[in-house]
């Protein structure tokens, strides 16, 4: 049965990730009193791109075409090792712990950067450089956050962390948890490219992620975009199920498929609430200048650091 749940989880992530992106852009437009695109627009865009022909720069290597598929595969693998629709480990969950999951995200990001460099496009290089300099500082903060969650639960297993947080009011309401949640939220803003860090425009002065797939077209661009939607979906799910709202996720393997299907609907509601927060941010906050992002990162680091201090002080 666990294999069935694993397949269900992958399908849920892959199918619903463009929907979440569509709902967010619709929300943002509605908040600005505009009509906005359909919530299914990302599906239409993907379908259109899959029908188009691929254009590959003459100077690029085979990595350029392979990259988006490999990145997408990485995210599919992450989908079955983190708690998305169940709070009990599925068949392949033991393949990697929290740090392993972080490394897989890192590996996918590295491949994206390599393909961007391989495109030999100046804009892609510019985006890669910016992405790498921000990533070099955000990844250690993420590791510090994981370590603090490890301290809290005596493990690096996201499923155990979920169980500890939902069953212990002491830890859930602790300062350590509060700091870790805020710090991860800042990292989430950076990793998913929301304002005030990144606006979804192709303005040369501020673009980071938008610049990287500049040379992609057709099915490769579709895979690249789909992988980005999946990454956002997975990070938001981790934030919801492990950090801030670990409740209601089915805890027992014998819960039955109906319970899991019901939770999938609840998870979508949770995600919509979270992207509402992002939509509010994206419509009310203005973008930082590029170098100001590092100050923002230093605040995230400060909060993760304070989490360790709070743990030390609250220790009996």
């Amino acid at each position, binding site marked *: 049965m666990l294999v069935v749940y694993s397949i269900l989880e992958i399908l849920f992530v892959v199918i619903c990730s463009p929907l979440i992106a569509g709902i967010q852009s619709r929300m943002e437009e509605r908040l600005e009193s505009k009509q906005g695109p359909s919530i299914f627009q990302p599906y239409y865009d993907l379908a259109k791109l899959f029908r188009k022909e691929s254009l590959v720069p003459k100077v690029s290597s085979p990595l350029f075409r392979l990259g988006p598929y490999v990145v997408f595969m990485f995210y599919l693998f992450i989908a079955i090792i983190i708690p998305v629709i169940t709070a009990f480990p599925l068949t392949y969950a033991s393949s990697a712990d929290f740090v392993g999951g972080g490394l897989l995200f890192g590996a996918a990001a590295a491949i994206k950067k390599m393909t961007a460099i391989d495109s030999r496009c100046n804009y892609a290089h510019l985006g890669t450089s910016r992405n790498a300099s921000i990533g070099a500082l955000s990844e250690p903060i993420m590791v510090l956050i994981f370590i603090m969650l490890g301290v809290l639960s005596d493990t690096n297993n996201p499923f155990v962390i979920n169980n500890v947080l939902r069953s212990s009011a002491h830890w859930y309401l602790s*300062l350590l948890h509060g*700091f870790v949640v805020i710090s991860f939220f800042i990292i989430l803003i950076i990793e998913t490219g929301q304002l005030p860090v990144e606006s979804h425009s192709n303005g040369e002065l501020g673009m980071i992620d938008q610049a990287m797939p500049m040379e992609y077209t057709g099915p490769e661009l579709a895979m690249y975009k789909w992988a980005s939607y999946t990454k956002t979906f997975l990070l938001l799910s981790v934030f919801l199920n492990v950090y801030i709202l670990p409740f209601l996720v089915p805890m027992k393997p014998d819960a039955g498929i109906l319970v899991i299907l019901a939770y999938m609907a609840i998870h979508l509601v949770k995600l919509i609430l979270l992207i509402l927060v992002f939509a509010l941010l994206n419509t009310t906050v203005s973008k930082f200048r590029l170098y*100001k992002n*590092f*100050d923002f*990162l*230093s*605040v995230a*680091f*400060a*909060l993760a*650091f*304070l989490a360790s*201090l*709070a743990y*030390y*002080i*609250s220790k009996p």
Partner: protein
Amino acid sequence: MMEQAFQILGFLLIVLTILMQWESYVKGVIFLFSVSSFIVAAFLILLGLSRPGENYLLFILAALTITVRGLIIPIIMNRALRSLYKKPWRVREDRPLMGIGGSILISLLLILVGFFIYQNSLYEVLKIKSGAVPFALFMQASLLIISRKNAYIQMMGFLVMENAVVMLSGWVFSGLPFVVEAGGILDLLGLVVVSSLIIRVREEAIMQEGDHFEKELRG
């Protein structure tokens, strides 16, 4: 339970001081100081609840803190800004002595130093781990004063230092006469008024000097 509440308030103050370090607009720093004063008042109220013998004095001190530090001082500072600048909301630290990110990291280091000092001095007597918070705040406020050139922000740094002293005195030297504690809080009012005047005179002189050079350059 009370200890946990103290920890939360203490860490909130530390976070607010980090935010002051991040904030470059003077009005933002004034607002953050006002919020931190309210938190100090909440701390005094909690302290009063945990010490039934002297609670009413601590409640009066809390009320004084809210009135003077939370309301009157920020109002005076905002008025001083309004009288000096046409667009007070745009007054900011445009050239800090060190980068914001770097100063936040140094601030974290200073928090550690504060904890180290407390751990090796008063902790032996008090046996309260979160008693290190005022020390950390004191160090952070010193950095705020050192790292900024804007006189208003430097004054805010001094007032944060004062907040740390109020916290520490409430915690450690609880038997001080009320007149001394209340006098300390009220003294600040005079200090802020006099400082605002001095800053105003200084800033006006700088502005006139700027105009003079500008005129000279224009020929």
